[in-house]
């Protein structure tokens, strides 16, 4: 008897796989994909490529790493709980089962590192990509994701000469706070369409009675479609007081696609006959869609599960939503293959 999507997800969840520790889950993925009748290969960075009919020109791209934080894996009253149930082993499980049932060639690419530096997606960029890609991320089962914000991880560093803290003088912490206030003017983040700069970590100072010589903050910058990352970074740098500098780490551009493009249409056309109304969604965060977009003809993201539960300790997905998503992915793959002819 073929594996059910609930069983696939439970097996993937049992293999805890925070970013960088994906080995055990990779073995499970290979086993499960073979059990579903798919051909499997693993690439140089650990991405698992499960194919049917030679792989085809439509790819379903998910990820099997998760944020850290092991959670008990349970199935209760039609819901499956566990780390990654929503983001994104649930969508990936539906993709694998959809590929096994699809009457058309398809590849499921299960990537590593999406929650980190997108190692898996960056590796894909070094090879050939198909024209049509569906990204597997939670979209509340009827949402079709047509936009993600881009962003960059920044390290803000300030330094000052130091001195006795009872006396007047410059403090690196004061400079850091002033920098943060100025950055907020460039990236206020009050709405989706405004760049945001969230301070996520802060360090500084050497002793209770010494004016701080060094202070540092981690900043998660996010920018909406229509904004240019390089020009926002330039504005942020120009806003800094003397003694402060910015280092840019991970970065991705924003992405926005037209709802009438082939992949969003294929997803909507699979949702409608099942009696549900598709919704278009734009996300505050980013995904591998941001990186892959520039290299494919059409792309959109879709998946079962409530995105608001992603990265929380309350992650769960409803089995009916997983099953619904199987039909949506399958329908989209078959439609896009017809479209390619």
């Amino acid at each position, binding site marked *: 008897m073929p594996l059910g999507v609930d069983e696939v997800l439970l097996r993937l969840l049992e293999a805890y796989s925070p970013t960088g520790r994906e080995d055990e889950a990779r073995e499970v993925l290979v086993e499960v994909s073979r059990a579903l009748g798919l051909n499997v290969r693993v690439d140089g960075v650990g991405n698992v490529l499960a194919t049917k009919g030679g792989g085809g020109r439509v790819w379903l791209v998910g990820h099997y790493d998760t944020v850290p934080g092991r959670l008990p894996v349970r199935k209760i009253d039609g819901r499956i709980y566990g780390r990654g149930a929503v*983001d994104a082993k649930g969508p990936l499980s539906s993709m694998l089962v959809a590929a096994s049932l699809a009457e058309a060639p398809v590849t499921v690419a299960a990537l590593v590192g999406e929650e980190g530096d997108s190692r898996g997606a960056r590796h894909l960029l070094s090879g050939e990509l198909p024209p049509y890609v569906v990204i597997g*991320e*939670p*979209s*509340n089962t009827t*949402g*079709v*994701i*047509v*936009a*993600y914000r881009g962003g960059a991880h920044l390290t803000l560093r300030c330094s000052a000469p130091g001195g006795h803290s009872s006396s007047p003088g410059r403090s690196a912490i004061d400079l850091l706070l002033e920098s943060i206030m100025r950055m907020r003017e460039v990236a206020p983040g009050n709405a*989706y369409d405004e760049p945001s700069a969230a301070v996520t970590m802060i360090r500084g100072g050497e002793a209770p009675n010494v004016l701080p010589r060094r202070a540092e903050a981690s900043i998660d910058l996010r920018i909406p479609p229509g904004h240019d990352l390089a020009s926002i970074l330039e504005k942020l740098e120009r806003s800094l007081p003397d003694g402060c500098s910015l280092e840019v780490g991970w970065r991705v551009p924003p992405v926005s696609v*037209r*709802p*009438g493009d082939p992949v969003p*249409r294929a997803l*909507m*056309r699979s949702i*409608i006959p099942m009696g549900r*109304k*598709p*919704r*278009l*969604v*734009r*996300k*505050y*965060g*980013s*995904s591998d869609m941001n990186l892959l977009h520039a290299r494919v003809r059409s792309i959109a993201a879709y998946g079962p599960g409530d*995105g*608001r539960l*992603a*990265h929380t300790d309350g992650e769960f997905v409803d089995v009916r939503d997983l099953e619904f998503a199987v039909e949506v992915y399958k329908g989209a793959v078959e439609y896009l293959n017809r479209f390619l002819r």
Partner: protein
Amino acid sequence: MEAECPICGSPVELPDDVMAGELLECPSCGATLEVYEQDGTFLLREAEEIGEDWGE
């Protein structure tokens, strides 16, 4: 096949295989539109705005 944008009145090209319930964007004014069918003809009406969601 064409239909009229109910917001700006511009003609909007519909794909040959269009399905009632599909959502698309008016190329002239950018409004999000929903395809519906009336008496065998496909027409357009204003759709819900694109939703915003957290995460990823």
